[in-house]
């Protein structure tokens, strides 16, 4: 990364580290630039069959019957699975994985039982000796459907006369509980202060509705799995996911198996962004492997990925923001209506918890509606639920600044959350670095750079909690003094490098002698998945603890070799130093290698194994500045300059931290400008490929400048804060605000696609 970039970074705590904060080449890099790295679809076993899924062409239909006889009779077909092959699970919320989960929904989403609820919903799968035979067999499976009326959009789905997806779905969180089923799965409220009073005291009130469309995580690697069943029934799964332990737990739940009878080996993962935190193909592949007695590989096509996995919610967001004339925020209210897709579980409540959290707001209320409709079940997507609510709030603040004639950055600064600020969900913030990001933005040359005709500049901010949770790490000292660091989290963006850096820092040894490895579910203790921006924080903390334990052991071993006590041994720069001086005793420092060589004589292998439930994840805040240029005759918008600023705690490997900011910003830009799910009148997805699901391409973008603000998190040995989620929160507002200033119109509906923007521009002209 250019030094002109680093020059802008702000480091609040000057501590000299040997490795932390440096930019070494990632340990898994060579395999990934030479094509040797093994991703999910690259796994190949002897006798392996190919499995393909048969999917619903209807948005909503009852399955009358499934006739698999013709397919079963086809030579080369060795297994067929339908919903009837999976145990029927109780309709209850169980503590699972990340948040409480209704595994009945996960199961029915993986393969339908009595009803299909969206275009692309899996109804059966077949395994055969070749791809061609598998596809031919799929075409021979006859599904008899009774097509039902469908509903796609969130407001339509909430209407009284809307077709109901789940006959038994009674809205949670409303008193008294409704007596009749609806598509409204639940309502969650958060409140503080008294908004009626707050709005009464407000001198200016901005009130508007905003909409966003469903967007997909867009990882380039389609879901892929290989399942194999040993003669004793032991199940082996190889797949790319955000958590081998999550895959193991979900498959055990869905198949009614003991967790111990399943072993999951993580392949390299080709992007996830939250979209690979659940199962789709995995349980089907296991059943097909059980039925056929052969290993089975299943790989989704891009069309299957778009139709049946992800996305995140399309939303309707209503914001009311009240302030004093001097810009002091007094009251804020948001009503969030989020699509959950076919099964309950939208991140609406997370939108409610995060939307106002960048600001000091004495009176606030968020009402969050979770609504099902005939779309794929939504999955987590980077800061789930936060960007949509933030888009509304940051747009309203921008409009308030215009109304008050205030600088939008100063207005945010005036109301910025700081240590001690109360959040709408309850707790007060501890040490946070939000104000620092605003000050960095104010000082950045971008903020004061001149703009040309048809250009506009937008600023927006974002917040995410970040999480910790269960993580395990093993640090093994090898016979020659090299070190293996084993963790249980798939490396989705360079985390191997961070783990190695932290271990080498604690051990004071050469980084090149530390080899980070990712264990399968039998090689390392349970670790919660790679998500929630938790790995460098939580798993990193486990690695630090394990390495510290290794240092303790090394001192004890050195003490034995010197016949002194551990207290007489000091560990420095990867060697043991004896502090006890005795006449005639040569106690030259012992290197890690020397102690390792002698390990057998001093008590056996040296290894630190730590499992923790990490608390103390520091929240993250970001401030983004976006410049756009609009072609007023075509409605085309180009992002011409972009700067992402974030409080990252401490950057262990700054390049990969910058990469998180840049990648998140660009996903947000795509969300704001072109990405959207488009359904036809029959509820069939119209853009199932990258041709018409328009993710940003290289030529759409400028360089994405970053500023890393380092306000160390006291909850981590090196001050790490999660960084992955925050960067996708501000872009929606930043882009929309920039376009609004470029064309002199307030854009409230994403994506701001050219037809939509041109219609708005011409509409305003017509209105005069």
């Amino acid at each position: 990364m250019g030094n002109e970039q680093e020059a802008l970074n702000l480091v609040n705590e000057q501590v000299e580290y040997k490795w932390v904060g440096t930019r070494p080449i990632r340990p898994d890099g060579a395999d990934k630039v030479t094509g040797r790295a093994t991703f999910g679809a690259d796994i190949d076993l002897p006798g392996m069959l190919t499995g393909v899924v048969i999917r619903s062409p209807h948005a909503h239909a009852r399955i009358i019957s499934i006739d698999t006889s013709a397919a079963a009779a086809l030579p080369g077909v060795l297994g067929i699975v339908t919903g009837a092959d999976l145990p029927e699970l109780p309709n209850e919320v169980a503590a699972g994985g990340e948040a409480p989960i209704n595994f009945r929904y996960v199961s029915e989403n993986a393969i339908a039982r009595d009803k299909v609820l969206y275009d692309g919903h899996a109804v059966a799968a077949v395994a055969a000796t070749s791809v061609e035979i598998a596809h031919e067999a799929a075409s021979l499976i006859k599904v008899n459907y009774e097509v039902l009326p469908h509903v796609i959009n969130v407001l339509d789905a909430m209407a009284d006369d809307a077709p109901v997806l789940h006959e038994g779905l009674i809205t949670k969180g409303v008193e008294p509980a409704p007596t009749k089923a609806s598509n409204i799965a639940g309502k969650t409220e958060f409140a503080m202060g008294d908004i009626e009073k707050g709005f009464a005291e407000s001198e200016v009130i901005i009130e508007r509705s905003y909409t966003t469309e469903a967007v997909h995580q867009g990882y380039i690697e389609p879901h892929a799995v290989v399942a194999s069943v040993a003669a004793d029934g032991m199940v082996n799964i190889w797949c790319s996911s955000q958590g081998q332990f999550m895959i193991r737990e979900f498959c055990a739940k869905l198949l009614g198996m003991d967790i111990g009878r399943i072993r999951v080996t993580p392949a390299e993962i080709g992007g996830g962004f939250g979209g690979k935190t659940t199962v789709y193909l995995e349980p089907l592949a296991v059943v097909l492997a059980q039925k056929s007695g052969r290993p089975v590989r299943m790989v989704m096509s891009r069309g299957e990925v778009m139709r049946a996995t992800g996305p995140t919610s399309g939303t309707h967001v209503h914001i009311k923001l009240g302030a004093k004339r001097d810009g002091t925020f007094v009251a804020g209210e948001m009503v969030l209506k989020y699509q959950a897709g076919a099964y309950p579980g939208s991140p609406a409540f997370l939108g409610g918890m995060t939307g106002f959290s960048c600001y000091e707001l004495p009176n606030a209320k968020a009402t969050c509606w979770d609504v099902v409709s005939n779309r794929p079940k939504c999955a987590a997507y980077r800061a789930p639920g936060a960007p949509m609510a933030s888009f509304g709030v940051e747009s309203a603040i921008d409009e308030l600044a215009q109304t008050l004639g205030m600088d939008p950055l100063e207005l945010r600064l005036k109301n910025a959350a700081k240590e001690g600020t109360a959040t709408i969900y309850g707790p007060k913030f501890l040490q946070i670095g939000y104000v620092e990001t605003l000050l960095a933005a104010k000082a950045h040359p971008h903020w004061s750079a001149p703009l040309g005709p048809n250009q506009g500049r937008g600023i927006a901010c974002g917040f995410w909690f970040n999480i910790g949770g269960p993580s395990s790490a093993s640090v093994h000292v090898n016979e020659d003094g090299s070190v293996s660091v084993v963790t249980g989290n798939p490396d989705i963006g360079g985390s191997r490098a961070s783990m190695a850096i932290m271990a080498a820092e604690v051990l004071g040894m050469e980084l090149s002698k530390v080899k980070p490895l990712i264990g399968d579910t039998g090689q390392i203790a349970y670790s919660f998945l790679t998500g929630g921006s938790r790995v460098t924080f939580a798993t990193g903390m486990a690695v630090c603890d394990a390495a510290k334990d290794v240092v303790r052991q090394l001192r004890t071993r050195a003490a034995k070799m010197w016949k002194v006590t551990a207290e007489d041994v000091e560990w420095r720069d990867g060697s043991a130093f004896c502090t006890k001086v005795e006449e005639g005793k040569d106690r030259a420092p012992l290197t890690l290698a020397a102690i390792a060589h002698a390990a057998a004589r001093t008590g056996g292998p040296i290894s630190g194994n730590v499992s923790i439930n990490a608390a103390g994840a520091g929240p993250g805040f970001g401030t983004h500045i976006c410049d756009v240029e609009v072609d007023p005759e075509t409605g085309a918008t180009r992002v011409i300059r972009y700067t992402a600023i974030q409080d990252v705690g401490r950057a262990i490997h700054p390049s990969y931290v910058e990469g998180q900011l840049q990648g998140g910003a660009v996903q947000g830009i795509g969300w704001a400008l072109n990405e959207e799910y488009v359904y036809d009148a029959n509820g069939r997805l119209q853009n199932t490929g990258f041709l018409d699901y328009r993710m940003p391409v290289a030529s759409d973008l400028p360089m994405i400048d970053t500023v890393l603000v380092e306000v160390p998190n006291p909850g981590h040995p090196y001050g790490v804060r999660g960084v992955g989620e925050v960067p996708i929160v501000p872009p929606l507002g930043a882009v929309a605000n920039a376009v609004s200033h470029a064309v002199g119109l307030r854009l409230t509906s994403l994506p701001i696609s050219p037809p939509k923007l041109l219609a708005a521009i011409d509409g305003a002209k017509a209105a005069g």
Partner: protein
Amino acid sequence: MNAVEYAKPQSIDDAIRCLTNAPAGARVLAGGTDLLVQLRAGVVRPPLIVDLKGITELRRIESTAEGFRVGAAVAGAELSEHAEFSRQWPGITEAFNLIGSTQIQGRATLGGNLCNGSPAADSVPALIAAGVRCIVVGPSGSREMAVEDVVTAPGKTVLTTGEFVSQFLIPARAAHSGDAYLRFIPRTEMDIAVASAGVCLTLNAAGVCTAARVSLGAVAPRALLVAACADALIGSTLDDAALAKLAAAASAACAPINDKRGTIEFRTKVAGVLARRAATIAAQRARGN
């Protein structure tokens, strides 16, 4: 599942023979950028795929007295790399440079882009504006026709069984003439044209437009050659009034659809904008020639 056969004839006659003797549904393969997508999607399962890239005439770019004779299986990238051609016909070159990514441009061919029959094919309006003709060969001999007469509707052409386009006849650019092609897409690359315009015009010494051809893409079931647009330019110095008239004529000629790529209103308005902008570029080039 019915088998697919692959054949790579070395001459036009062999190719015609392959196609005529093949069971119904045989498909010609040039660049394959559309055919392979259809194959994978299971939209088509042809009994025979006839690869035309083994036929020398179809792979050649020849300079002739009349201009250029370009094989139908020449890839867009190969055409762009032909210095003399791109000097004379920057508009056509630009159009081919816009077809998909670098990867696609290395494969997609002139014949394929036309005969796939997409109303949004980038090269077609540019070829029509330039007055390009093509040679169609088949069991009943060969015939020559204007590019605008090949496609009849989305995915449909006048070609009959055993027929294929072998070559394109591109005239030498007339003196004081210039061409240009513009399209609108939501991103900067990788999209299918939402609306497009190809313009070729000639100016006299006084800078008055004496001849013009304007073609629009993605705004009707097939690429259009719009006489009213030419009329708006001919006799003018491409002043604002003439350009406004051109834009209006272009919009008036549109008969687009609403789909995931654009609305009727959007396509109609943008077609006019693009025609105006393309005409301005073409005129600058004409003045330079």
